């Protein structure tokens, strides 16, 4: 069967957005944790870029 036939008849479509929501939440929880624990000094120079002119 052509692949599109499977896309056309997904039952319980609402599980897919739920899965993507979970992926997103987990990913961003990790990002937030990483950023919060990262060393701030390393990024200070970047925030100075507009003021260097």
């Amino acid at each position, binding site marked *: 069967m052509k692949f599109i036939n499977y896309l*056309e008849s997904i039952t319980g*479509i609402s599980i897919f*957005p739920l899965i993507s*929501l979970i992926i*997103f939440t987990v990913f961003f929880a990790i990002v937030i944790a990483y950023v919060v624990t*990262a060393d701030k000094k390393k990024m200070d120079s*970047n*925030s100075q870029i*507009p003021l260097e*002119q």
Partner: protein
Amino acid sequence: MQQMQQPLERFHYDNKLPKAFLMVTILWGVVGMLLGLLIAFQMAFPWLNFDFALTTFGRVRPVHTNAVIFAFVGNGIFMTIYYALPRLMKASMFNEKLGWVHFWGWQLIIVAAAVTLLTGHTTGKEYAELEWPIDIAITLVWVVFGINMFMTIIKRRERHMYVAAWFWIATWVTIAMLHIVNSFEIPVSMLKSYSWYAGVQDALVQWWYGHNAVAFFLTTPYIGMMYYFVPKAANRPVYSYRWSIIHFWALIFLYIWAGPHHLLYTALPDWAQSLGTVFSVMLIFPSWAGMLNGLMTLRGAWDKVREEPILKFFVVALTCYGMSTFEGPMLSLKNVNAITHFTDWTVAHVHIGALGWNGFLTFGAIYFLIPRLYGTPLFSKKLAANHFWIGTLGIILYAIPMYFAGFTQALMWKEFTPEGTLQYQFLQTVTNIRPMYILRGIGGTLYFTGVLLMVYNVWKTVAAGKFIPTEYGEAPALSKVFVPAKSYSFWHAWIERRPVQMLVVSLVVVGIGGIIELVPTFLIKSNVPTIASVKPYTPLELEGRDIYIREGCYTCHSQMVRPFRDEVARYGEYSKAGEFVYDHPFQWGSKRTGPDLHRIGGKYPDSWHYNHMWKPTTMSPGSLMPNYPWLLDDDLDVSHTAAKIRAMQTLGVPYGNGYDQIAVADLKKQATTIAENLKKDKIKTSPDKEIIALIAYLQRVGTDIKAEKKNTVTKN
């Protein structure tokens, strides 16, 4: 950043393009806001429509929205990018000639937009009204802009891209995606096309586009603006670079999903509505991260805010941004939306963001740039401060009457008598809020007065100064080999020095939401259950529908009866997804200045509609609707009818084979019947007039399901 020993290079910053964009930003701001004032007062004083098609609300409103969004804000974006990006990248703008092509191309598009929209050439889709030749022009100019912007970044001497640039990259690629996908349309003539999509699917694509026009035209490029001008004006670095990382990625990912919050309680499938709500609420967090990042940048500099009007504008801009991005998610909750949808509350919400965030940030940026471009201090700081106060007052006097009007209208619509019938006629809700429309107009006038103060201030500053066409910078070239110093090796830096990857990853991130929401809606047939009795429009009805679109009726009238007791009582059976399958484009509308029209078919005799379009107050005393006398005088143009039928056939509407050949004959037959009906009611008119077509369409709307009341809906 540590660079290997590279020779210092001298390069220039062009100020001519930023100056040009600045001037037209002011010009189109004035034009767009004047049009806003016109339509605001037209809603309280309908004689201001002047009985003339080109000045009637339905025609002028899209010119206002296009002018303030694409002309005012658009040029504001370009003004900022052409000034700030070279300085952030320590590189000249890639190609000045390309920049001028971009500039003139965009201004020509704006002029073409104004002319075509006023003369009734519109797709009938909000914020995407421009017809297909202009859509193509927009794409070409956008590509030119993208080349210039991206090549400047590629040729940079500052290895890591500042946060403002990430937002501008994401803006560019997402607007390209949105514009192209929403503009799929089939041309019928040089200035007329039909949306490729229909009904529910068109609604979803339209509001995926529409909300993300807000996100990626009105928000992300201005966030970039904020990240540049606020630190510059306050002379302190952005509060938290870490926050800006989360802010950026979370914002561009989440925003795309929010589109369905424009379609709550409509015929859109439930799962899509829920997605829109959930993601809209999550959107509070990155939005407020941005607001707080901006406001906290002023920590320790609040005394400067007292002295400096520019910072005052930025503070209010950020505050309005925060207000708007809290209110928006609240409006996306279904229970709140049930009250606010179609009312003036939405208008209030829009204008807090537009006047507060976009307007004030633009004004602050202009006051910042003008002295620097002309080498002289601002003519009058006092005048700028006055602009700030009068503008702020204007925003408040705009929003509060609109909140009041929205709330009043919604509650009046829903009010029942103890016996169980509707308490208020629709018209009563309109006349009740008319004073609010006047107040809002005064608020807008105040805001506009502030803008005029700015025009004067800018003019006097220009007169006193001397334009500096070029400035110079010096920086070493990037070394070919880059070894990240141990002091800057956190993971995000990897993508900060790779603009191409930044572009691609941004595109992937913004693509996800669209794909997950749009693809199933298109592919899964059960999302739009077929209703057997729904048939295509007749040629006369199709022409009438095109007149409905041309006159912008959707700017005041909705065609979506929601499944609420009060709406079913007032209008009739609530609207089903399957009824709209042949609607290219959909016309569900966003606002009920006038009543919903989805069940208007068969409610009134043809003569009622004839009189009503001629002078609405004859049928509805106290109505604020403009007169449409030209519909009674102008002949219906049937030279494109056959082409329209063929276009619809291409789009899958089941007209019979060869029907286009006899379409006009059928049209004339139906028109004669209607003219004879009108004659019975003592109205003498030729069947060739436009009003006949419009009557045919209005009498057809929403009647298909009445034909089969007892039959069940067939699901696939």
